[in-house]
């Protein structure tokens, strides 16, 4: 009797886990750091080395206003204002943004080259 109950419980737990893993998407890595685009860019402008220690190679979620959008093989969107800019590069070439739109994007930080560069980006739907 007891063994039967234990087997039942284990069976139910495994079924629930399988169903959950199928319905929930565990494939996408959560952003390690969430920061406004302008703040991220300011940190890089103030001290590139210390910003790199904090952000380089990490998945970062930035939010900000779209300054420009470039279509192409690897479309990229620039967020921020003034000289505080973050360039988010997408692999999916069907990506599209409008200037002035407020968006949240997560991507992998590659460093600073004219702008902070995030690669492998995904738009976060709110």
């Amino acid at each position: 009797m007891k063994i039967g109950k234990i087997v039942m419980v284990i069976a139910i737990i495994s079924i629930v886990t399988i169903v959950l893993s199928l319905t929930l998407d565990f494939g996408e890595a959560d952003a390690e750091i969430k920061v406004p685009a302008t703040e991220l860019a300011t940190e890089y402008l103030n001290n590139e080395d210390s910003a790199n220690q904090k952000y380089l190679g990490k998945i970062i979620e930035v939010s900000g206003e779209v300054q420009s959008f470039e279509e192409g093989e690897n479309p990229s969107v620039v967020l921020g204002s003034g000289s505080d800019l973050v360039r988010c590069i997408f692999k999916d070439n069907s990506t599209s943004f409008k200037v002035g739109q407020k968006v949240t994007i997560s991507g992998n930080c590659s460093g600073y080259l004219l702008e902070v560069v995030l690669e492998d980006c995904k738009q976060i739907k709110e």
Partner: protein
Amino acid sequence: MNWMNKKHIFLLLILLPFATQAQRLMDRHGKVKFFSEAPLENIEADNSQALAALDLSNGNVAVTMLMKSFHFDKSLMEEHFNENYIESDKFPKATYKGVLKNFKKENLNSIQDSLKLSSQGELSLHGKTNKVSPDVVFYKNGNKLMAKTQFVIKIDDYDVKVPKMMIQNIAEEVLVTAIFSFETETN
């Protein structure tokens, strides 16, 4: 404050094209590729986000790229490249600063087929800087001025260490190819 910022951007947007057109050509999406042929496997990686600037007044060239923007077919290779060999956390950028010899702005405008110029400069990679002198070939592609260069670097010159057991996998010499595309108004 916000209004001031906007005004500045506006001014910048108006002035920038004049400034860049007259003096400097820039490419934000330069393509840099490296290729190495080792006994066990070929290693190839692409970076399509290199930044290149050419000063038309004196032929000065500057190229900068982020090491983490190099992408490999195999993600494991990319990981090893970043973590074990190029140490991109410590040395996130590679740069080339140099000058084109016998550079004349007029010669670029009158390219028929192609124009080959030699350059002389310094390549910084993995915290080491060496003198290099790559040739650059300029040619037209529609309204665009293209610049292509190809040269070989020895990884030992840049202090990239390969463990003995990996010697069959990693070549000592790497072929670097770079192509830049500059927008030109005048044809």
